[in-house]
């Protein structure tokens, strides 16, 4: 029998719909691959074959009856552990959420089921999505399938590693400051952070609510577009959900960038950018130029202010969002305490990990009386200026082309000791969250150690189709840069 994990997700669904293989076989293929590889990679924190096979049988019936005809019907999918899945543990990789089993389905997971996909498990992540390496997980680190001595990136490291290792063809991640695009870059997979409001946040356990967005992770642009198409929806339950005129993202999969204007920010190519990343990005830009795109360098501006503004806003929102974890309604409660307040404090102190506490402390400080204007409002004013800089750029360009991260994946254990240095690694991704714009990371090369490099393309709000078309065109021309599969 053919190796189903070598197909694309869209091809797999086509074979299922044509009756060549069953949903059950597809689920087994993924879970067998997971069992074989995940002991080393540790991308998953939860799987349940029995439950997945039960769902597979239900979906098979609907496919056979012609009720499910979508591009991904029958395909197994993994879901990041901060996205609520009814009846399946959802812990944000935090001790404070241990044993939490949601009694409701997040809108994104509900959309997966509506599309006839089978959720086969939950993927590892940095605790509460706070981190860039998936090392802050209470379950321990995920390893990069390209070299298990290296991190997969984060915070959606489990989702990206699972796809890179061929344990699953599709996964959902979430992106607050780069948490889909950066690990996609490190793991050599394709990931999209959609425009804020495109995918419902209902059931996504909040980190920075004004920045969080759920998005697709896949092995190629077509599968990414298909998955985005299935999860994007207008949802009354998310007051920031936006109704789009057009959800047909797959129609953007055209090999054509003639006349497309691509701007490369000079300010992204200075100090801190590894030459081993710069090279593949320049080559990728040259490929798009050859295909007829107009490629220019320009000054974006405001780049150095994005990270400080981001960490003020994200930490402030996190400190507020994480107030709900108090040991009363769900999750961890300390064993010994004296009275209510002591119970709150001890449960939170024992339940949250170090990075989470660090951000809650910073967030509480910048929101506190006397500092609110100087830090929090200052950051929100900076955000307005960053948005303005992007508006000016998109008046001239269809796409902004940049690296997804300044380096390839660092080795395990190298990042957490110097948080500020780790935060600086988010330089190319956080601005998109502050400005609300969509971005894709697509593999464009390997460094001399054989680790993947990701190219990021940013578009104006709701211009997902523009970046998908450019990414698809690049992918068509790129060929097999990897020469071998990950792991």
């Amino acid at each position, binding site marked *: 029998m053919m190796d189903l994990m070598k197909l694309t997700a869209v091809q797999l669904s086509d074979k299922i719909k044509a009756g060549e293989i069953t949903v059950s076989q597809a689920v087994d293929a993924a879970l067998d691959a997971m069992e074989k590889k995940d002991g080393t990679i540790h991308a998953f924190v939860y799987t349940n074959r029995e439950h997945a096979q039960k769902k597979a049988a239900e979906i098979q019936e609907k496919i056979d009856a012609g009720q499910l005809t979508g591009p991904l019907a029958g395909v197994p999918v993994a879901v990041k552990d901060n996205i609520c899945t009814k009846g399946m543990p959802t812990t944000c990789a935090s001790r404070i959420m241990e044993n*939490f*089993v949601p*009694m*409701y389905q997040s809108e994104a997971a509900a959309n997966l089921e509506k599309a006839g996909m089978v959720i086969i498990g939950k993927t590892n992540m940095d605790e509460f999505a706070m981190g860039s390496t998936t090392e802050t997980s209470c379950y321990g680190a995920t390893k990069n399938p390209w070299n298990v001595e290296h991190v997969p990136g984060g915070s959606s490291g489990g989702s990206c590693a699972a796809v890179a290792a061929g344990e699953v063809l599709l996964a959902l991640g979430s992106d607050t400051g780069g948490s889909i695009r950066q690990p996609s870059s490190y793991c050599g997979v394709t990931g999209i952070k959609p425009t*804020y*409001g495109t995918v419902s946040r209902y059931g996504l356990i909040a980190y920075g609510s*004004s920045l969080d967005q759920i998005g697709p992770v896949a092995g190629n642009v077509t599968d990414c577009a298909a998955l985005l198409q299935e999860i994007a929806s207008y949802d*009354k339950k998310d*007051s*920031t959900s*936006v109704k789009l005129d057009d959800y047909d993202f797959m129609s953007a999969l055209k090999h054509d960038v003639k006349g497309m204007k691509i701007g490369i920010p000079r300010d992204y190519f200075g100090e801190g950018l590894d030459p081993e990343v710069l090279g593949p990005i320049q080559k990728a830009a040259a490929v798009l130029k050859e295909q007829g795109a107009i490629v220019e360098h320009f000054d974006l501006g405001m780049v*150095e*202010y994005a990270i*400080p503004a981001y*960490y*003020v806003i994200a930490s402030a929102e996190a*400190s507020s969002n994480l*107030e709900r974890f*108090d*040991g*009363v*309604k*769900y*999750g*961890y*409660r300390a064993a010994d*305490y*004296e*009275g*209510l307040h*002591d*119970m*709150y*404090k*001890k449960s*939170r*102190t024992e339940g949250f990990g170090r990075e989470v*506490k*660090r951000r*809650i*402390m*910073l*967030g*509480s*400080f910048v929101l*506190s009386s006397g*500092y609110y204007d100087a830090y929090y*409002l*200052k*950051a*929100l*004013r*900076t*955000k*307005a*200026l960053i*948005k303005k800089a992007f508006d000016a750029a998109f008046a001239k360009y269809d796409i902004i082309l940049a690296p997804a991260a300044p380096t390839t994946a660092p080795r395990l254990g190298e990042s957490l000791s110097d948080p*500020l240095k780790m935060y600086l690694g988010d330089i190319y991704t956080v601005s998109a969250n502050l*400005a*609300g714009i969509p971005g894709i990371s697509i593999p464009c090369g390997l460094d001399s150690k054989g680790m993947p490099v990701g190219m990021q393309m940013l578009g104006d709000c709701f211009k997902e189709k523009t970046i998908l078309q450019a990414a698809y065109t690049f992918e068509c021309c790129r060929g097999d840069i990897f020469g071998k599969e990950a792991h």
Partner: protein
Amino acid sequence: MAEIITDETIDYVSILAKLKLTEAEKEDAKADMQKMLNYIDKLDELDTSGVEPMSHVFSFDNVFREDVVTNQDDRDAMLANAPLAKDGQYKVPKTVE
């Protein structure tokens, strides 16, 4: 120059954050926060006078709906996640003397 983070600041912020830090953790928190604030100070270079703080990139209208219950009575399912429950309610330490 950034605000100097003192022991008192850390104690006050721990109260706001509802965290009980050990002395060693307090020292770490003090150093971490100082380092971050020194870095965040970079924002002071920017002239933001006359710039409105932007909380959301799109102007969202408030979403209203009729005050009608649409969900089921999920009490027992919700309580199943509680660390302690009794008689259909969350159980917490005595809060009023």
